């Protein structure tokens, strides 16, 4: 019977969840319990076997089938206001309209009441005083006056912190929100350079409030026209999701600078919401302590992506910045090729110290990726039992080379 605690440690080890001290404890326990050791080896083999199963490629036509599915096409057409829609979509569109109508009625009870009253009067009047025939009214009405919205001008939009009636800061509650909504609505119709001119005159709190009311793309173009310190101030006032989205839309060379202008407590949160490739770019450019903090909070999937995308120097610095007891765990999460690259950047002592903290199989995999001269140096610095394990797992040719190299180094001493 295997102790449940040991079983849990085995499971955690397979899933890379053990701390270095837990891993050490597990190794010691397994050495003393052959039944547990055998079960662990089987579980490890199972995990390796499942890992070796390659993903399957879907048929190249699958995407076409999805996009051409009548359900998808109908939904797309209905959103583009094309009248040909399927029954199912009609049903959802209808329920959508009814929902909006009900919402509107609830919001504008007084207005609806008034409209109903007007309608009753019109029906009453048309019954007793019928509408004249078209011929009877021809020529009595002047030229048609079509509605055309005038081009927006500076006068139309009263922005700024002048304390007039339309300034959001002087109105309260619902009025304030409505004024903001109206102004933002008007604001969107102006060309970007005009918007930027008005925008600059506003206090930062109002700017942040306006930004929340305009579409994301417009928001990003407007923010990009602001000076860097203003961008930082606006950034700090935006919701984290918006920060991450805005960050993803600015040019790569500006991203790291913007990121560093954010409040420290917001950086890690915004970082986690950014796309992986942007995260990797930011990690490369951000100060080391911030990169390390971001890495510590990243999910397994994010870590893997970072390890694949970050340059070796950035990875090596991250490794060095991690607490000593966490380095081996961090290192083991990297792909073996990247491990070998990062390993090359360490001193021989650091390499030997790391080596001793790794499981034997991981040691062997890494060892086999190293140049022969390094292998010999490391080999001499690790304990005898680790040497034996390493030697047994090395291919015959490597064993012979290693023997030669060690002998040569010993001779040189």
């Amino acid at each position, binding site marked *: 019977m295997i102790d449940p605690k040991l079983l849990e440690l085995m499971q955690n080890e397979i899933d890379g969840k053990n701390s270095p001290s837990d891993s050490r404890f597990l190794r010691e326990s397994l050495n003393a319990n052959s039944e547990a050791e055998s079960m662990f080896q089987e579980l490890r083999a*199972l*995990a390796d076997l*499942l890992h070796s*199963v390659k*993903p399957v490629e879907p048929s190249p036509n*699958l*995407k076409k089938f999805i996009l051409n599915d009548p359900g998808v096409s109908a939904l797309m057409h209905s959103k583009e206001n094309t009248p040909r829609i399927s029954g199912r979509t009609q049903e959802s569109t209808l329920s959508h309209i009814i929902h909006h109508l009900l919402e509107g009625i609830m919001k504008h009870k007084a207005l609806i009441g008034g409209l109903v009253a007007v309608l009753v009067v019109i029906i009453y009047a048309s019954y007793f005083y019928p509408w004249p025939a078209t011929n009877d009214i021809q020529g009595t009405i002047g030229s048609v006056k079509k509605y055309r919205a005038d081009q927006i001008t500076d006068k139309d939009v009263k922005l700024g912190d002048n304390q007039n009636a339309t300034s959001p800061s002087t109105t309260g509650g619902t009025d304030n929100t409505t004024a903001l909504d109206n102004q933002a609505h008007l604001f969107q119709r102006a060309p970007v350079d005009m918007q930027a001119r008005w925008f600059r005159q506003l206090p930062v709190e109002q700017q942040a409030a306006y930004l929340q009311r305009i579409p994301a793309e417009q928001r990003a173009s407007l923010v990009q026209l602001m000076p860097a310190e203003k961008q930082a101030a606006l950034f700090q006032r935006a919701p984290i*999701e918006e920060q991450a989205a805005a960050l*993803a839309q600015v040019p790569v060379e500006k991203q790291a600078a913007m990121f560093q202008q954010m409040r420290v407590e917001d950086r890690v949160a915004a970082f986690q919401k950014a796309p992986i490739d942007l995260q990797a770019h930011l990690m490369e450019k951000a100060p080391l302590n911030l990169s390390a903090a971001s890495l510590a909070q990243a999910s397994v999937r994010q870590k893997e992506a970072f390890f694949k995308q970050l340059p070796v120097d950035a990875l090596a610095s991250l490794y060095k910045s991690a607490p000593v007891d966490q380095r081996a765990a961090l290192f083991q999460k990297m792909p073996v090729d990247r491990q070998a690259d990062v390993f090359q950047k360490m001193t021989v002592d650091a390499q030997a110290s790391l080596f001793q903290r790794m499981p034997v199989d991981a040691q062997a995999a890494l060892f086999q990726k190293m140049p022969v001269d390094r292998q010999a140096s490391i080999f001499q610095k690790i304990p005898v039992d680790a040497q034996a394990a390493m030697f047994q797992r090395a291919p015959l040719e490597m064993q012979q080379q290693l023997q030669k190299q060690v002998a040569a180094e010993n001779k040189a001493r």
Partner: protein
Amino acid sequence: MISAEDLVLIRKCLGGDRRAFEQVVDRYQKPIYNAAYRIVGRREDAEDVTQQVFINAFRNLRSFNEKRNFFSWLYRIAINESLNKLKSTASREIFHETEHGHDETPDDVYHKKELQQAVQNALGQLTSEHRAVVVLRHFQDLSYDEIAEILELPAKTVKSRLYEARQQLKDILILHRQI
């Protein structure tokens, strides 16, 4: 939490942007297809499931809570669709398909075929609950928390199911001399 890129795509989809929907399909069709394939065991069924996942997702996009992770939401639909597909094909013999590349030697193909078949058959012997956790953990490489979010279970339950599933898989594969 949803990624900024997904959020932008979803909002564009809601606005009727067909290209945004195409991008969502490009981004997620492979992992969704793979998860479905490992659960249902047949390419044809996995393609049906994948197609249905995107149609259902698109149809219900308005109900998607932007505070949730989009891929977790998609995976949830995928798992449900796969399990439905399994129920509807319960009488058919499944888990017999294998994959191989063009540049492999006959030995490689044989070995890989045997391995794939053994793994698929072993997966097919698990309950659907156990199969789902194994697929999400080992083939999709998701964390306990991510699996818990997808299956709407406590992480502790995910962990215990994974433990049971691994024990069963291990025993099945040992019996077939694959471990």
